[in-house]
Structures are given as structure tokens and as C-alpha cells.
């Protein structure tokens, strides 16, 4: 079973104990749901790696890392597993990660997604400013300086 993010639990708890009428809760749910990725809502999480699933067998698809933070455990979606691999970005249990990201809507639930992940002295941007998972890049071409890759 997938570990839920603390922020998601906090959001659920807020909704459950708001004391509002059911109809009002429904109306509030739309407004309170995190919309698309918003740089203004970003936060920084620091935690120790409890587990890392580069193959992304948990939903949503992609690489997941579970961090032990000062507030509990947090499931962080790191984006495209191929992108981490292509960039030789390794993560193992016990590592301390710094993650810049935020909670976004996932179906009728939520998921904490990373835009930037730092392990030691290496940092990797895994999502665009829109929060879309990035694909791999090519080395710059000597002929035209163009970069390419894939989602």
C-alpha cells in the first residue's frame, strides 16, 4: 500500500474536522484542492530515505522515495524514473535528501511531487516550472548547440 504524504493527511484531517455541513464540505473541496503546480506554493522538505522505488511500481507512475522527516514519513514522487537513471542520480536508504516541491491533486486525492531533489552536493531538477516531469536530455551538439531529449 502506498504511503500517503503528511500534507495529504493534513488536508484530509482539515476537511474531516471542519465542522461544516456536508454540502459545504463538497463546495469547499473544489476550492481547497491543490490545482496545478504553482511555484508560489512550493516548500522545502528535508528527510532521510526510508525506501526508494526507482521502477515506480506505486501509483502514480514514476520514481518514489519515502522520506522520514521531523513530522513523519512522506511519499515523494520524483518524476520519470528514466530521467533519474540517465542523469546517474542515485538514491539509497539512509541518504539525506532535500526536496523542493508541493502537494498537487491526483485524481480525487493528492500527491507530493518534487521539482528539485538534492542528494549531498548533487541537485537535479526533475520537473519543469509547470510541474511536468522532465525527460532526458542530449549532450549539446557541437554543430548547432541544440539540446534534445524526451518526456
Amino acid at each position, binding site marked *: 500500500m502506498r504511503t500517503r504524504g503528511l500534507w495529504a493527511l493534513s488536508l484530509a484531517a482539515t476537511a474531516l474536522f471542519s465542522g461544516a455541513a456536508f454540502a459545504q464540505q*463538497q*463546495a469547499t*473541496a*473544489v476550492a481547497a*484542492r491543490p*490545482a*496545478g*503546480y504553482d511555484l508560489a506554493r512550493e516548500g522545502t522538505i528535508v528527510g532521510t530515505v526510508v525506501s526508494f522505488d526507482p*521502477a*515506480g*511500481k506505486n*501509483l*502514480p*507512475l*514514476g520514481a518514489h522515495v519515502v522520506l522520514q522527516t521531523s513530522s513523519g514519513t512522506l511519499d515523494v*514522487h520524483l*518524476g*520519470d*524514473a*528514466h*530521467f533519474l537513471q*540517465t542523469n546517474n542520480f542515485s538514491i539509497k536508504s539512509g541518504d539525506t535528501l532535500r526536496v523542493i516541491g508541493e502537494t*498537487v*491533486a*491526483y*485524481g*480525487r*486525492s493528492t*500527491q507530493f*511531487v518534487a521539482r528539485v531533489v538534492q542528494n549531498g552536493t548533487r541537485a537535479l*531538477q526533475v*520537473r*519543469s*516550472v*509547470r*510541474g*511536468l*516531469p*522532465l*525527460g*532526458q*536530455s*542530449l549532450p*549539446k*551538439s557541437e*554543430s*548547432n*548547440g*541544440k*539540446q*534534445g*531529449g*524526451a*518526456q
Partner: protein
Amino acid sequence: MRRLLLLLTCVFAGYVAGCGGGGSGPTPPPPSGGFSNASLKGQYAFSMSGVDTTGAFIARTGSFVADGNGNITGGLEDVVSLGASSSPALVAFTTGTYQIQSNGRGLVVFQASNGTGLQLNMALSSTSRGYLVQTDLNATSSGSFNLATPADFTATNFTGKYVFDFSGVSFGVSSVAPLSIIGQVAADGNGNITGGLEDSNDGNVAAPSGPVAISPGTYALDSSGNGTAFGRGTMTFGGRAFAFYIVDNTRIKVIEEDLQGGSIGDAAQQASTIPAANSAFTGGWTYLVGGSTTQGPDTRVARFTADGNGNLGAISYDENNAGGYNHISQGTNISAATYAIDTANAGTGRGTFTFTDSGSGTFKYVFYAISSSQAVVQDLSSGIVSDGSMLAQSAGPFTLSASAGNYAFNWSGVQLGSNSAVPFEEDFVGQYALSSATSSNISGVVDYVELGLSGNNLFTNIGLSGTLTITGDGTNNNTFKVLISGSPSTTITFQAYFASPTTMFLVCSDNTRTTAGITVQQTTP
């Protein structure tokens, strides 16, 4: 190369018998129908997109000539393979062979003068159209082909207003993000792109562009002989550069070749009658879009009705977001369901629609009408870059008896990983017969590629069986569940929406894949 040679040997030696891993499940039915090698005769334009073995974007568009007797007598393609090179390749096919079975399934192998090759499996929906999947294992990709009209391979035949939908990737500083551009562009038949309007949704840009005027550009058919022989040309507009192949005077297949990204799509001539006001946009519509959300790959299929007065109703919506399935039905949960034909950009066929679900939030789209019954559509909802097709939905009820017949299909998406597979794109092409029975009414054959699997990645001549269950009058989501007897065998459940009794959009509702696609009744020669 050794891998390709082994593959070719395997396929030609046992194409009908199948060399993919067959597992438990349905035995492929014997081919039946009226297709043959003679069904593929003439010049065809094609386009495909997918990913290479490292997951990098790859796309190709081109033209080939089939002699109706199993031989490819020539061809040309543009290939953008961003994992291999930052420059597009122009590849000439000097020879090739193909085989078409009576059910319309086929195999074509192109040989290039530089020693490379391209192998595709296909399913013909008629003698003039069909679907393709790349099966040489150099990449996994899929697409379509159309019978071309060589007499239209002139600049003067590219004239009028064209609606386009290009999707692919956009370059960032050191990475790429998904890209969708839809719009309308005007060509004057004399080498000039005179303008137009587009909506760009670029994952590297903070927000969708909204309607943006297209800066003028130029176009020209190749003077090398490729223009008259294959309908190839190049064009620029909106600050981007493209190569294109003419299908006929109503359609071109386009591939982006510049420093901004890689994208591919069709441009279709806009009909003279398109919705110009809300009152002209009425009835049922269904759409299918695919792309990426903040979580990963995403596919959405839905239908709605438009009342001619700016209001949507009868909404049914299904989404697979990186394995997370969500269904929405019309009820008190739906609010702010409206549409608007863009009168500020009159004559473009541009429109928008939106609705809010109390549980899932707000959905927003922009579309450009190709005609009164077809459009391209782009998703403008938060956290998504996605686009696709929208078709007027014929009146229900939809019934099995009215839809029974033979179908060609193409499905593509991402299988999300398992104990024996890493998440990767998968592509399916095949054919089945649909009967009017209420169960076990699907029986057919499929060819598919799953590069994410360890071991065998290619599955050919695999049996497929299942059931299409129509719910109510069939205008909303129906269940299309099939068992594919590859090894391992796979069961896929789709949510299926009728555009007409003979055309359906499908989105997988399992948590194992985001695969989606289309199935079209075959017109047998």
C-alpha cells in the same frame, strides 16, 4: 543490427504462425476478410511517434509506394530521433516488401540505401487508411497512413485554411517537457503562410499561451525531385520550422525540425462550414486526449452535449492519470459547464469549453473545428499538457447489432511496470471481429511491442478475445475488456466511447497502464 536481422528472420519465417511469445488465452482466429497484397497499392503518406529504447522522443513522417504485389518500390522519410541526434535525418527507401493478410493485418519492411531498415506492422481500416506500429525494436512507436494523391504534390494544391495539432516535446535548459500546439494556419497556394492563430501549451512555460496570432512564413516543395515524387516540402511559421508530406489537397503530415523541440501531427483543410457562434455548436461530442500531468502519462476520454446556447450537459468523463482511474458522470456534482465559440477570433473555428466536478476540480479545453463534426482539442486544465481529437457523436442508442463487423485498431500508452517490466511505452495494432452477442463478442489478433519487458519485447499474431458491454444507450462510457494471450497474457479493460456505430475512443481504466486509442470498422475491398 544483429537484433534487427534476427527479428526479420523470425518474422518472415513465421509471420502467420507468429514468433512472439504466445501464452495462455485465445488462439488467433484464422484470417478472414477481403484484404490482400493488392489492397496496398499506390502512394501512401505516413506518420508515427513514440520513444526509442532509452525513452527519448522519436518521430517520423514520410511517403512510400506499394505496387499491390508485395513490393515497396520507393519511399522517403524524415526522422527526428532526439535520443540519437540533434539533427533530423532524411532517409530514402530504395526497396522493401510487404504482406497483407485477408483480415487487413500486414507487415512491411523498408530497406534504405544506407543499409538501415524499418519494420512496421499494420492494420488496414480500408485500402486508403490504416494504422502502424514499429516492430523492429529500435524504438516503439505507432501512427497512421493515408493513401496519397500524387497529382496534388504541388505548392498550388496547398492552399486555404488548415487546422493542425502538433504534439511532442519542448527543449528546456538541460531537459525536455511535453508540448502541444493546435491552431489554424492559412496557405496561399503560392509559397506563403499568410497567418493564423494557435494555442500553445508548453510544459517548460509557466502557463498555456491562449490564442496567439501566427507570424507569417513560407513553404515550398523540395526542388530535388522529392517534392514531385513524394510530396515532401518544408515550411516555417510561428517561429518554427517543419518538413511536411502532402497526402492530398486536404491534408498534410508535418514534423517539426528546429531548435525548439520535436513535434509531429497532421494539418487538415478546414471546411467552409465551421461553428461561428454558440448557436452553431450543438449536439453530442466525444473527445480523446493524451499527454502528461504533474504525475506522469495521462489519457482522458469524454462526451458531452452542447445546447446551442453556451451550456454543456450529459457529461461523462474517464481519465487514467499515471494509473489512477477516475470517472465522472453528470449530476449535481457538475457545475459551470459551459462553452464559447471564439467570436473575437471569428473564422478560426476556435472555441473553448469547461466544467467543474465537485470531486475532481475544473476541466478546461480549447478546440479548433476542422468541420462541423471534427475538431482538434487541447487540454488547458491545471497541471497538464495534452491534446487529441474531438468528433461529433452520432445519435444513440448505440447497439451491438448496429456495430457488429470487423475492426482495425491502434492503442498506445505506457504500461506502468510490474515484477517483470519497467514502465515504458507500449504500442498495439490489430484487427478483430465484433459480433452482436452480449458476451465474448470480440475475437481477433494483435501485434504489439513492450520495450519495458525483460526478455521478449515483440508479440506478433497474438490472439485477442473479450467483450464489449454497452451500458444504457451507449452514449456514455461502455466497457471494452479484452484478454491478450501473449506471454505473459494480459487483460486490459477500456472505457469506450462511441463517436458513431463504427468508431470508438478507448482509455484503459486499469492501474497497470495508461494506454488509449481508437478502433474503426473496416471497409473491406
